[in-house]
């Protein structure tokens, strides 16, 4: 996979990108294997909880309440974090966030930073901005390290290198870490990564992180992780810079009780993450001396303003939806052209772009509902997808040019047909006549023209029956048949 930036503004439309992904059989194998493993683990630990559905409802209620009062809780967070010695920065968009972080990193006096995996930093494309300012960012999360060394892009929110298998990872390590001898067991690869990273942990003075949750009540920040690199990056550096979307807020410390049961079980199929870190501001002689948090909007407030799409912000980034999605299973994450892929990506990415880009993503779904079924906070993703589709259509049918939108014309025509029994029956008769030239001897159609051709690329279509149900009903004889 090349280093093409996952930028929704320039990414290929999903149907095109997906076609290429489907042709990559190694990718398909890797994605299927990884998602099946995580799904099994998730099912096992979720099955242990007798009140899982009530827990989901509690999670949903907490997130809904938070969004309804987001302004209040954000200000509460700022107050409490500042009181504890943290410095709170507000970033309207990705560009502002990048500038703030670059300036903070420069001011910290270091030309290197160590990073914990953060999808938010990917969203704002932070690393290239740091590089441009002469600051090298070392990824310390194993998957992000693999991505960085492989000059690749993340394809999954929780397991960013899911599209790579062990052999491919070993190759990357051999090449980039200059290891002539490298075993292929997981322990060998972990050992290589550990040695490679230890040096950085102990040397680099500035750390950059994301956040899983921000606690308004205490001004605290919570990060959960599996590898311990987070713990290293949060405690060893002198300066810590955290960037978090404003949707990461939770009202009370106690709300972690619900979220930290929902998140690890949904994300990695674990009862809890091995490392759970919560820090509040700064403390003398303990951890970083300077703590900065950058609160990022980047279109989240516009999502908040849309009552029917607001629940998009409830997401706690567990990626259970990605693992359950039958579409993601076929294509992997890169096809979505965004760091947020799969079902959540299909609703979040276009909205972060204010619906100006990634308009193919709301259609990248068969509306099967598997995502809604596993979402720990009960986001009705199919419903939001349909809502966004109507926005895409409104956009496409706006203005003079919109009057000529082919699909809209066809849809309006069909709606007119369905509004009248007479027209409907006429259309049925017309369709039977029109398809006649396409029907083969066995009563099947192997080729359809134009946009319908997508059907016959890999499916046949049975010819229409000569008599519709209602025509049969009308002709029912005395015996009813």
């Amino acid at each position, binding site marked *: 996979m090349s280093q093409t930036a996952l930028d929704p503004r320039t990414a290929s439309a*999903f*149907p095109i990108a*997906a*076609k290429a992904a*489907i042709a990559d059989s190694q990718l398909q194998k890797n994605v299927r294997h990884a998602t099946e493993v995580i799904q099994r683990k998730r099912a096992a630990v979720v099955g242990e909880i007798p009140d899982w559905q009530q827990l989901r409802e509690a999670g949903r209620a907490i997130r809904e309440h938070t969004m309804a009062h987001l302004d209040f809780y954000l200000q509460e967070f700022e107050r409490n974090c500042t009181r504890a010695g943290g410095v709170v920065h507000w970033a309207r968009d990705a560009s502002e966030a990048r500038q703030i972080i670059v300036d903070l990193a420069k001011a910290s006096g270091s030309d290197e930073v160590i990073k914990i995996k953060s999808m938010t930093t990917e969203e704002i494309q932070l690393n290239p901005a740091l590089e441009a300012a002469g600051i090298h960012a070392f990824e310390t999360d194993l998957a992000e390290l693999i991505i960085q060394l492989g000059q690749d892009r993340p394809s999954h929110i929780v397991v960013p290198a899911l599209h790579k298998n062990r052999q491919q990872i070993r190759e990357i390590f051999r090449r980039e870490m200059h290891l002539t001898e490298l075993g292929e067991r997981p322990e060998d690869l972990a050992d290589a990564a550990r040695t490679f990273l230890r040096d950085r942990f102990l040397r680099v003075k500035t750390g950059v992180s994301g956040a899983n949750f921000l606690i308004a009540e205490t001004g605290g920040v919570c990060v959960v992780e599996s590898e311990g690199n987070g713990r290293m990056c949060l405690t060893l550096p002198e300066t810590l810079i955290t960037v978090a979307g404003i949707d990461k807020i939770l009202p009370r410390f106690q709300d972690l009780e619900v979220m930290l049961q929902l998140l690890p079980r949904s994300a990695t199929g674990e009862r809890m993450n091995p490392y759970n870190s919560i820090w509040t501001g700064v403390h003398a002689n303990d951890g970083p001396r300077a703590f900065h948090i950058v609160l990022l909007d980047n279109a989240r407030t516009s999502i908040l303003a849309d009552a029917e799409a607001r629940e998009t912000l409830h997401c706690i980034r567990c990626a259970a939806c990605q693992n359950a999605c*039958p*579409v993601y299973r*076929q*294509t992997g994450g890169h096809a979505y052209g965004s760091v947020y892929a799969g079902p959540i990506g299909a609703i979040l990415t276009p909205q972060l772009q204010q619906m100006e880009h990634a308009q193919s993503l*709301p*259609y*990248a*779904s*068969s*509306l*099967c*509902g*598997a995502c*809604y*079924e596993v979402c720990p906070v009960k986001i009705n993703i199919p*419903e939001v997808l*349909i809502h966004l*589709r*109507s926005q*895409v*259509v*409104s956009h496409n049918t706006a203005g003079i040019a919109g009057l000529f939108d082919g*699909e*809209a014309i066809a*849809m*309006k025509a*069909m*709606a007119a047909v*369905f*509004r*009248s*029994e007479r027209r*409907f029956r006429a259309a*049925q008769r017309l*369709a039977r006549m029109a398809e006649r030239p396409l029907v083969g001897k066995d009563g099947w159609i192997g080729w359809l023209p134009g946009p*319908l051709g*997508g*059907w016959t*690329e*890999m*499916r*046949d*279509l*049975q010819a*229409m*029956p000569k*008599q*519709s*149900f*209602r*025509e*049969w*009903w*009308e002709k029912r004889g005395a015996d*009813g048949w």
Partner: protein
Amino acid sequence: MFITCYNDTLFPETGRAVVRVLERLGHSVEFPAGQTCCGQMHYNTGYPAEAMPLMRRVVDQLYEAEAVVVPSSSCVAMMRDHYPKMAHASGDATLVARLQDLLPRVFEFSEFLTKRLGLYDVGAYYPHRVTYHASCHGLRNLELGEGPQRLLQAVRGIDLVQIAGLEQCCGFGGTFAVKNAAVSGAMLAEKASAVLGTGAEVCTACDNSCLMHIQGALHRERSGVKTRHLAEILAGEEISQSEA
């Protein structure tokens, strides 16, 4: 009966089968002739305004029925999940009230039998090897649960085999099948492969949309495996001719 636009046009045999089963059980079936379409395709593709008048039409056409039977779980899901919101958005209090009154009387075919009539054995005979595919709307939106499979288990002569990946989407998804043909095809390939893996002669489901999709692949492969709606299997009788 609400036949649905695509069953009326493409799968009249399913409608005939529903009538057969219901009459065999002693019920009388009516068919309001003015019915056309529930509006799901328009609503799901992003044209809610076009779906609105179709919804009104459905409510008007079906309002007088004692019970409405629909051989399509996606259409019932459309009505249950989306009609209330649409009615509310219209601001028409009468429409909201009429819809609220009608919805509890609307049933997908299999749930009419199992939940409304409390029946699992409907006196069917179908001596074939059959596998069941759980359509997404029936499974997740209508929560049909074990109902369809228990109905099948009670069929005399049937050899019912479980499919691998029972709950995995077949890839139809309405306009998705055409807009994202490659992904739809890849999902279909897995489902078709699973069907063939059961050795079944017939694949069944509660939705002809899924079955049309699955049959499309099975026929393209010249596999000889057929798809039949659940109603057609339940309509099977010892004396009548099988359509297989």
